[in-house]
């Protein structure tokens, strides 16, 4: 290498070294800058955020659980409602068509409604609970079934025979036990109160049989 070239290399190395140190210094300065602006959170800030998040999630969770419970209750009520309105419709349609509707004691069963198709079969509407020894409808037991027995065809209400119309009936008035089926003058009163897991739905209507 000649002297000229050597000096050039030296010069280059010098410049390179200068440049590198310059870049290093610059980098350090930028790093310092970043460190200053990008501060992260202080403990207080983090705590505030955590507290707010916890509160938000807590309230949301609470409301969610309450809504879920209401939702479940709604599902149960919906089921009862469907059954009660179906039973109501069925009994009302039956009674509208029938002749000779009477509030009767059928065998040992008190408070039944006996009705007769015009020139046809005789039916008995009655409340039934297999654990009830006297087969009455004064709601001695917690839950009763409403059944419709076709007497002409040999259904025996004493042993719970007949078509099931509605289940889980309770007394319309807990204080003074009444029945779901009553008749005054020409009107039949249907007062269905159905209870399933703490949910109670009550539907009441009257019907005046058309063929009396």
């Amino acid at each position, binding site marked *: 290498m000649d002297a000229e070239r050597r000096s050039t290399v030296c010069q280059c190395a010098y410049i390179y070294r200068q440049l590198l140190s310059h870049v290093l210094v610059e980098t350090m300065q930028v790093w310092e800058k*970043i460190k200053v*602006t*990008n501060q*992260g*959170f202080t403990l207080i*800030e983090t705590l*505030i*955020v955590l507290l*707010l*998040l916890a509160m*938000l999630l807590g309230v*949301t969770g609470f*409301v*969610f659980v309450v*809504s879920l419970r*209401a*939702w479940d209750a*709604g599902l149960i*009520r*919906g089921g009862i*409602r469907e059954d009660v*309105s179906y039973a*109501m419709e069925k009994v009302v349609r039956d009674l509208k068509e029938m002749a000779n509707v009477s509030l009767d004691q059928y065998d040992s069963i008190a408070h039944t409604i006996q009705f007769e198709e015009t020139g046809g079969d005789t039916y008995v509407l009655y409340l039934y609970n297999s654990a009830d020894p006297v087969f009455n409808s004064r709601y001695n037991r917690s839950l009763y079934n409403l059944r419709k027995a076709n007497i002409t065809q040999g259904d025996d209400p004493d042993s719970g025979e007949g078509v099931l119309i509605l289940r889980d009936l309770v007394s*319309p*008035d807990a204080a003074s036990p009444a029945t779901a089926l009553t008749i005054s*003058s*020409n*009107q039949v*009163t249907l007062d269905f109160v159905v209870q399933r897991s703490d949910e109670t*739905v*009550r*539907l*009441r*209507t*009257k*019907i*005046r049989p058309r063929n009396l």
Partner: protein
Amino acid sequence: MKQGFTLIELLIAIILAATGLMVLMQLMGVAIFADSDLEYSLTSLNLANEKLEELKDSDYSSVASATESSISGFSFVDDRIVTVSEVNTDLKDVQVEVRWTQKGGQQSVNVRTYIANY
């Protein structure tokens, strides 16, 4: 520049999340309300029919407009209104309305029929 979040940004994010969750809760509430709405109208419809059957069973002359301010056993009901107008001497137009209050407004169901003097 990698700055991370500031407190303000996080708070905005929380508010957005809260708004979203609130909408969800609102939806649930609407569904639950719709459910009880259905139950009230079903019960009221039966009570209106009850009144109509009572009137059909009573004397023609005693079929007249009347208002019951409450129905025992059905505390949600505000009132049950019977409106009677005479179409001619032997025919009455009878309308029974059962009203109740829900969601801050008055709801009602109506049944209507003619009762003849026969």
